[in-house]
Every structure is written in C-alpha cells, then in structure tokens.
C-alpha cells in the first residue's frame, strides 16, 4: 500500500510553506506528522500532486503560557500535549483528549495542527477545542487572522483555511480546576470514536461532539441548559439537538443520538474515559 507519486517540497519556514501553497494551490497538501494525510494517500483517497513538508519548520512546536490563554504551536505533537504539566494543571481536558488519540506510536508523530486542519468529524482533539472555545490562528501571504473554532469548521473535511493559508497556532483559555469530562466510545481501544463528547465546565461551559455530524459539532442547547443550572440528566437529553449524525458500519443514526446523550451525561458528571 503505497501512495501515488507526488512531488516533494520541504518548507523551511511558515512563510516558505505559504509561498509553495501559493505556487501550487489546491494541488498541494501540507504534511506535518502525516498521520491524517498519509493513511488516506496510501488508500489513494488523496492524490496530491505536491506534498509540502512542514514537519521540520522550526518554531512551531510549543505550549506557551500566554497569560489569560495558553498558546499551542501547530506542530506540537499529541504526546507533548499528553505529557505537558502546564496543560495537566491548566487545561486538563485537552491533555486528556490528546492521551486518548490513537496509540503511543500515533501520538509520537501526529500533530495538533494536522489533526485540527484535516477536519475529520471523528477526531477527538477538535471536540475538546470546541468545548474549550479555542481560537485558531491562520497565517496567509499577507497577514495573520484569528477566528473562533466555530467559524473554522465548515463541513466534512472542510475548514476556513484558504488554499494559501497555514494553521500556525491554537489558543485555549485556562479553565484550571473547573470541572470537565471526556467520553470516547468505541468497540476497540485503537478505533476512532463511534461517538465522543468533550465537556468543559466553568463560567462559559462548552460541549463538543465527535462523529455527530459532517464536522465537529457544538451542543449549544445543552450548553445553555448547563449554564442555566439544569440537572445533568436534563441537559444530557439535549446533547444531539444540533447534531446531524450519519449511519455507517459502526452505528445507526438513532444509536449515535442515544450514545451522545448517555456520553454527555457521563461527561457532565466529570467522567473521563481512556
């Protein structure tokens, strides 16, 4: 199982990557850790003409204490999130979600920027970032722009990234000791979530859903219920109010909806699955 032929360019900096993206446009794909892109290239579901390798671009791998927020470089690997003592104390939901991604080998290679930019609704990290109300920082040829994660996800594998833009940083608030929960339901531990739920409590509670629509979904009605002090059981019933899950080999639509309510109830109770 080998990818179709492609031309290879190694970017020396984010600016260089943007130049190359400007040159090759939609025929190019960015490669970071390669754990979203390479599997689909091997299956020939993606056949980019050009692969722009940003994996060795310096200065994009960091978890930085930025006062009110924590700034995370796009090339930060899942294992760095998992092992971060800063995240353990200040953003435990994100640290935990990172520890649930794939397996050790995958977490040693995969990056937060790659997982987020790929836009797969089955990915764990975007749901945690949705619950955290993260800010995405995009760099293009002229300037940088920031947007809330809600504006970043447009549809199935579709994000607000322009063809000549690179996701360079993700900013998350620091909820510290506020309650949180994370639930990832699958048949085997190495599988993608059939449904997943990330919950971040605090002044502005957030709930992100995995695999409950064409892209990462915010459970807005349930968030309102939590904020207004509803009982856990009542709020959990609203888990799928905004969701549009699909049926596949793993689950029917009705089963996904049921799972989202059960998992949200557990997440709101502060439970974290491995």
């Amino acid at each position, binding site marked *: 199982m080998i990818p179709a032929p*492609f031309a290879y360019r*190694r970017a020396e900096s984010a600016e260089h990557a943007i130049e190359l993206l400007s040159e090759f446009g939609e025929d190019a794909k960015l490669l970071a850790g390669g754990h979203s892109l390479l599997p689909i290239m*091997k299956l020939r579901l993606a056949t980019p*003409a050009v692969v722009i390798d940003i994996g060795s671009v310096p200065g994009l791998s960091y978890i930085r204490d930025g006062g009110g927020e924590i700034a995370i470089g796009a090339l930060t690997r899942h294992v760095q999130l998992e092992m971060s003592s800063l995240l353990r104390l200040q953003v435990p939901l994100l640290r935990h979600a990172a520890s649930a991604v794939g397996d050790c080998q995958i977490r040693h*290679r995969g990056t937060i920027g790659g997982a987020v930019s790929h836009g797969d609704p089955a990915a764990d990290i975007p749901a945690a970032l949705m619950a955290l109300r993260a800010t995405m920082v995009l760099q293009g040829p002229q300037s940088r722009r920031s947007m809330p994660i809600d504006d970043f996800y447009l549809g199935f594998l579709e994000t607000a990234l322009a063809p000549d833009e690179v996701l360079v940083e993700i900013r998350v608030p620091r909820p510290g000791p506020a309650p949180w929960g994370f639930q990832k339901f699958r048949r085997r*531990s*190495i599988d993608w979530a059939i449904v997943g739920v990330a919950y971040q409590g605090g002044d502005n509670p957030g709930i992100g859903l995995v695999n409950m629509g064409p892209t990462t979904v915010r459970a807005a009605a349930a968030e309102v219920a939590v904020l207004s002090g509803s009982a856990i059981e009542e709020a959990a019933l609203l888990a799928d109010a905004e969701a549009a899950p699909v049926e596949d080999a793993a689950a029917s639509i009705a089963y996904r909806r049921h799972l989202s309510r059960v998992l949200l109830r557990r997440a709101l109770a502060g439970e974290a699955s491995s």
Partner: protein
Amino acid sequence: MSDSVFDDVDVDTMIPVRLLINGRDHELDVEPRDLLVLTLRDRLGLTGTHIGCETTSCGACTVLFDGRSVKSCTVLAVQADGHAITTIEGLAGDDGLHPVQDAFRRCHGLQCGFCTPGMVMAAVSLIDEGRATDEKSVRLALKGNLCRCTGYHNIVRAVLTAADPSLVDDA
C-alpha cells in the same frame, strides 16, 4: 485535480536523504513516496521490521524515531532525513540481548514471533517514557500492537519485568 500543475512538477525526482540507522549513517536517494518500512527492508536489508496491516493499526512495523516508537508504514523515508532510527537489529549490544529482548525470552512473551519486533520496540519506548507503572498502563500503552497468538498475558509480563520486576505479581 488539474493535470496542468501535475505536469509542471517532477514526481520522479529522487530526494537525497541521510538516515542514522542503528548508529550507522546511510546516504541514499529515495522517491518522495517511499515508506520508511520499505526503505529499511528493501533498500537496507533490515527485514527484522515486519509489515503487517500497512494501515497504522497492527504495530508490526514499529521502530524508534529519535528514541520514540513510530509505525514505519506511516512515515515517509524523506521525513526521516537527518533523524536517528533504531530497528530491532540495533537493539542488542556486544554484551548480549537488550533487557527488553531478554525479558520477552524469559517470560515467553511470544509464540509465532511475527509481532515480536514491533512489540519489543514499542516496549522499549513505553518503558523509557515511564508508561510501565502497572499492568493496566502497559496494556494501554501497547494497544497499538496486535498479537494474534499469545493473548498478551506474557507480553505484558515481559514488559513489566523489563521495566521493574517488582511490578510483576506472579514472577
């Protein structure tokens, strides 16, 4: 995908890479799409790294990339340029088996042996990372490596034995 751009770029250009494999420098030219596992096996003859599922699931192709376990079916050889790769062939020293290899042998942590190179490399990494604290932690950290023979019991015992023999209840 438009053909025009595809025609403008040369997909046949070989890329020179320098790989530090098991402590030895190798300079070779690779195709951009060459997978690390195939470069190790077919170009360098290091067939101890096995090919199982080819879909990042089974872990048979696990090697160390700068000291940390990765699945070499999902790494391009060009991504390993300038990095240190350790395969199962590079584990044993002049004074005998690596402690993890020795523990697998003593605990009977294998039957057919197909998954073993990947299991051992994954174990070396997870022990080094401090993930081997009890049976549950070892099972969780080894979930990316599939074994169809053993039922994992003796593999987990081997990893715990190599990490710290006092972690094994029934040793």
